[in-house]
């Protein structure tokens, strides 16, 4: 079999794409430079209240840049749609686009529905008014859907762990062969993005790596937020010695170089001492405490409702908590195996714990700052005069009013957590060495980077696009929430 080219049957589109992209780049740079030299068009107000703007050279460049942007996007869209129709007849891009069809469908459905009902969806709907926000959201959801579908075995072309000695470091588009024995019937005929140094499929590993990141990063960030909120609100609200002690502790952790902390915490020797399990046992109490206080402060005047509600919530969360921290033959082995719902492998747990540990002091400081500001508002004074409890004021008066910046920071922080996970993988810490997560894959690929860049480049670009998406999303959210 012939190796695939990048675009196959659609290659006539390529010159168009390069021309449009080059023109777009040149025009953007030109616009940037001219923006400082040339004056923009003059706006005049007419008697009937209408405005008119004279068109100068700047406006001309703007229009041209817009057209080239549209042309570039149209050709790119054509490549993806045509590729999805033609499969690997349209080369590597086509093959990938065909594999990603479920993602495209889900993405189109979700964005279309959200756009149609955007006026009824609150802040989320407003996101669709900002181009930057929507493009970030689309990038993020692309990886979320990719992770979702790869867990149903839909997108990956090969097993991310299966090796083939004949495929070692082969370039993208190489037909799949095996050194010994025949290729199994019905397996995908190509390695779309080539093979890595052990002969594993780079494309499948990149997609499977999304699952690791999408599972850990948002959850770890959510935990860090619960720790930060549960400690930051009282620190700001009560102040005094509690605030001093908590702030000192937070600064202590922040003064630690992150990588040193990872090297000290995420080693097999430390896992053997059980310290991560104890840290997990302490840190995972915070969500239970958070929800208990949250519900109790709201409903304590209605014991009929509160008591069953709290019993239910604490029972469910407590069971999850015990299953989470209890590991058979591990450091903490309290739950009998019949009741233990799941075991988290030590490597994943320690990665999770250390990422939460690193993130929570920053969240603590942000929450504390916001709460210090909100505490002085009139509605807080009103609630105090009404005789509301301290926790009620913190969680039901201050927190909802600080939600805008917190949501924005959540998006940014998920991106930062993704970078941290990549850093851990890059230093080969925590996750098992054959794990397909992006950091480990970059670490694997970097040794032969100068000769075979493709195994490291694919996960690097994947990580870049996800973090970029999260940052753009945060930027769009910030813009829209400021507009309120």
């Amino acid at each position: 079999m012939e190796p695939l080219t990048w675009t196959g049957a659609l290659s006539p589109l390529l010159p168009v794409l390069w021309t449009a992209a080059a023109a777009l780049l040149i025009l953007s740079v030109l616009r940037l430079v001219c923006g400082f030299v040339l004056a923009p068009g003059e706006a005049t107000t007419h008697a009937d209240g209408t405005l008119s703007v004279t068109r100068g050279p700047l406006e001309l460049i703007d229009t041209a840049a817009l057209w080239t942007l549209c042309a570039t996007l149209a050709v790119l869209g054509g490549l993806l749609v045509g590729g999805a129709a033609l499969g690997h007849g349209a080369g590597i891009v086509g093959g990938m686009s065909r594999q990603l069809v479920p993602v495209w469908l889900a993405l189109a459905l979700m964005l279309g529905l959200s756009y149609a009902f955007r006026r009824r969806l609150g802040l989320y709907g407003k996101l669709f008014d900002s181009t930057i926000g929507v493009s970030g959201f689309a990038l993020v959801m692309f990886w979320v859907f990719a992770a979702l579908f790869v867990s149903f075995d839909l997108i990956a072309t090969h097993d991310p762990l299966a090796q083939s000695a004949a495929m070692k470091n082969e370039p993208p588009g190489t037909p799949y062969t095996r050194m010994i024995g025949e290729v199994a019937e019905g397996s995908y005929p190509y390695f779309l993005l080539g093979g890595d140094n052990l002969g594993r499929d780079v494309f499948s590993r990149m997609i499977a790596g999304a699952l690791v990141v999408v599972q850990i990063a948002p959850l770890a960030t959510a935990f860090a937020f619960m720790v930060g909120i549960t400690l930051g609100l009282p620190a700001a609200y009560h102040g005094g010695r509690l605030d001093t002690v908590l702030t000192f502790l937070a600064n202590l952790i922040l003064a630690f170089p992150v990588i040193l902390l990872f090297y000290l915490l995420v080693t097999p020797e430390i896992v053997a001492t059980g310290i991560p399990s104890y840290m997990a046992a302490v840190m995972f109490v915070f969500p239970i405490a958070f929800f208990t206080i949250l519900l109790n402060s709201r409903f304590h005047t209605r014991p009929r409702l509160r008591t069953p509600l709290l019993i239910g919530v604490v029972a469910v969360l407590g069971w999850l908590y015990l299953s989470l921290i209890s590991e058979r033959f591990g450091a903490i082995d309290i739950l009998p195996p019949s009741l233990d719902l799941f075991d988290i492998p030590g490597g994943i747990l320690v990665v999770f714990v250390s990422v939460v540990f690193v993130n929570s002091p920053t969240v603590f400081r942000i929450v504390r700052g916001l709460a210090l500001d909100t505490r002085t508002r009139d509605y807080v004074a009103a609630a105090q005069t009404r005789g509301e409890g301290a926790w009620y004021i913190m969680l039901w008066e201050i927190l909802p009013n600080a939600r805008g910046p917190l949501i924005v920071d959540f998006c940014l922080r998920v991106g930062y957590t993704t970078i941290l996970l990549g850093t851990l993988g890059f230093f080969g810490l925590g996750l098992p060495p054959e794990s397909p997560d992006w950091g480990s894959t970059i670490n694997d690929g970097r040794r032969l980077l100068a000769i075979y860049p493709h195994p490291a480049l694919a996960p690097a670009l994947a990580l870049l696009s996800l973090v970029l998406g999260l940052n753009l999303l945060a930027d769009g959210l910030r813009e829209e929430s400021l507009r309120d």
Partner: protein
Amino acid sequence: MTAFILRRVAVMIATALSLTFVVFFLTNLGPNLEKLAKTQGNVRMSDEQVDTWLANRGYDRPLFAKYGEWLGIVPGFVVEQPDGSLRGRCFGEADTLPPGAPRFCGVLQGEWGYSTVFRGEVGEIIAIRLGLTAKLMLWVMLLMVPAALLIGVLAGMREGSRTDRTLSSVSILSTATPEYVSGVIFIALFASSATGLKWFKGTATSAMENATFENFFLPVVTIALFGMGYIARMTRASMAEVMQQQYIRTARLKGVSFRNVVLKHALRNALIAPFTVIMLQFPWLLNGVVIVETLFNYKGFGWTLVQAASNNDIELLLGVSVVSVFVVLVTQLLSDVGYVYLNPRIKVA
């Protein structure tokens, strides 16, 4: 002001003590000591042999005693070896107690200990490595700070304009590119045989003695790029805020040209906030240094940290953490003090 600085210094010392103790505690845990014994001694040692190896080198004593010795407030240990000779923290191995040997030899006496990986004095190793990293950081700062300030000021002076949006997108892109991603992309593009553009070298090992544009530019750009976006965005926010002030409007209405308003009225006030941000970037730059030095094989401070940590080289690791914690805390202090000096509206008690 003096009281403020004194209080901050006291907090700094408390922080440094707590952090070094945490590092000390974690590196002196049983499994870590066992790993140290097996890497330094013999991989096939039995449990008893590991215990004697550790006991002969003074590792089996209480944690606080060892920490005190390292600090230099507890006399250094002297252990009699099985063959009758003596081994002590302050004099190494000897048949009898040397007459001139000091009793205390810790950080307070200027003794940073002995590195088990590099087989040398920790103080010397750190000094050499820190010098190499200082060279890297100098170039990073020279590239990053002016570029970031320029982007931020240009974007912030006309908030919401096309220029602003273009430059803000560039800075978002740069904050979304961690060093290990941009480094990999740069090497793949500019230093590999795959594209054929061999403009730069993919390793910076030769830059340790002789830094040239060819072997030093990529690591410098890689670190600078990640830090740049954040500083640029903060500068932009600060500049945009200043441009909305009343006195800027007054200056505009007075007929001062836009260029002079930006350069003479706005710029100075807009650069106060970025100063703090640049100072507070140091801990993150340290991360970048570790990644880039590993990626480009530049044997500086970050590379030493990785070597010390992966081999559980206790005293070297402690030295490295003292230095890095010191850098973080001093830059925090400098940023606070500098902020007060730059901004006369702020008063500290």
